[in-house]
């Protein structure tokens, strides 16, 4: 076993447009999947974290219980099965109905898959916030929706930001599973290049390095945002603008 670094360099200089296309697709899937997954997670996580209030009307109670069952099922199924299986299954299942491309299907699947993980993170984030915050908001007459949006969500997102951001790293890597429905992301491109040249070791070494660069840059950006969220910088900015 030996790695031909010269060949690797030549492959990179020759095939870089293909790699670049794959990188762009991988990043698109990772970013869209993470952002859409976060939005799904906020809604599902919030429904999951709803508590039955003694003041609720009977109909509200029933709706909340249905919501709990639905969100529980959703998280159970999408966290409990591999994304690759979900991708192939849903792609072919819904293709006759919605006539979607593998690109659209891939975006949809990575989003709802991420949504299940995000929902769990958001739910635990919501539940970790002191009950006093909720009571204070209620005591001045805020509705449940208002207190969620203005008091609970901002704190839950800030507290769970490291876990939420981690989903971006996961998605950069796990989007490769979408190659199963022929989405032309980085791994799919690597397989094509390697297949035509029969130089698996070199091509996948390059691919691994590219993934590593992408996740490292993403980590760096996330760490920066995290510092901004928790640091005193926000105070200084607000004071200046005041």
């Amino acid at each position: 076993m030996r790695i031909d670094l010269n060949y690797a360099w030549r492959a990179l200089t020759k095939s870089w447009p293909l790699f670049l296309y794959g990188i762009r697709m991988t990043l698109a899937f990772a970013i869209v999947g993470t952002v859409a997954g976060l939005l799904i997670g906020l809604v599902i996580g919030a429904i999951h974290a709803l508590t039955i209030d003694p003041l609720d009307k009977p109909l509200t109670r029933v709706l909340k219980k249905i919501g709990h069952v639905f969100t529980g099922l959703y998280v159970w199924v999408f966290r409990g099965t591999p994304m690759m299986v979900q991708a192939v299954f849903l792609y072919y299942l819904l293709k006759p109905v919605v006539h979607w491309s593998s690109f659209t299907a891939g975006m949809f699947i990575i989003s709802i898959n991420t949504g299940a993980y995000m929902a769990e993170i958001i739910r635990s984030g919501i539940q970790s916030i002191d009950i006093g915050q909720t009571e204070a908001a209620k005591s001045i007459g805020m509705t449940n929706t208002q207190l969620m949006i203005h008091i609970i969500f901002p704190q839950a997102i800030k507290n769970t930001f490291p876990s939420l951001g981690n989903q971006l790293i996961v998605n950069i890597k796990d989007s490769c599973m979408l190659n199963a429905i022929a989405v032309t992301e980085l791994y799919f491109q690597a397989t094509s290049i390697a297949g035509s040249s029969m130089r698996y070791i070199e091509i996948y070494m390059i691919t691994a390095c590219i993934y590593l660069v992408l996740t490292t840059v993403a980590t760096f950006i996330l760490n920066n945002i995290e510092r901004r969220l928790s640091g005193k910088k926000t105070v200084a900015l607000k004071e200046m603008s005041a």
Partner: protein
Amino acid sequence: MDIIIQIEHLKKHFGKLEVLNDIDFTIERGKVVTIIGSSGSGKSTLLRCINLLEIPDSGRILYEGKDIMSGHLNVNKYRSKVAMVFQNFNLFNNKNVIDNCMIGQIKVLKRSKEEAKAEALKQLRAVGMEDFAYARSTTLSGGQKQRVAIARALCMNPDVLLFDEPTSALDPEMVGDVLDVMKELAREGMTMAVVTHEMQFAAEVSDFVVFMDKGVIAEQGTPDEIFNHPTQERTKQFLSRYSNR
């Protein structure tokens, strides 16, 4: 006698524990009523029932003569009229001082940003926290947080202010600042219901004192009657523990 809140036959239990057992209680406009009693006597639960943070099992709570649990009254609107100050301050951690005071005005009272800001600054000035308007709430000391919490409640222009042991979580040297603010409010004629362990404060500021024991109102009267001439044995026992300290 102008009664804002009238409570009739209020009952509340947690599991098997009877926390409130047939409580009758009134809050008069412009008056300060303090509720004293040992821990577990039900005084905080009574206060929390008034703001519906606890839902009574039975009994009625009348606000200006209307039953707040009948379903005809908007609970959120009612709550904004009966603002609460908590033992643990419960300032919104994601907001700075002035935003804490503005959010309720904007979202609940539908005031404009400018109106809300002016009111917030006015109330922060009243509690001596104007200089901290743009500080993050998490950077304040306990006494400062509690004064902001009082300003936040005042910004709703409530009919009644409820205080749930407002000085119990404070360092001793901070207690005075908060009590001074409350005394000033009382002087201005704010209607207040205060659960407290500060007997000196209760004696000085209250128009009416309620002593609770084991879920019932054991004795009630003017500060002079309760503190100087208690008739019930358990009131005497309770007060002697404080005077001996």
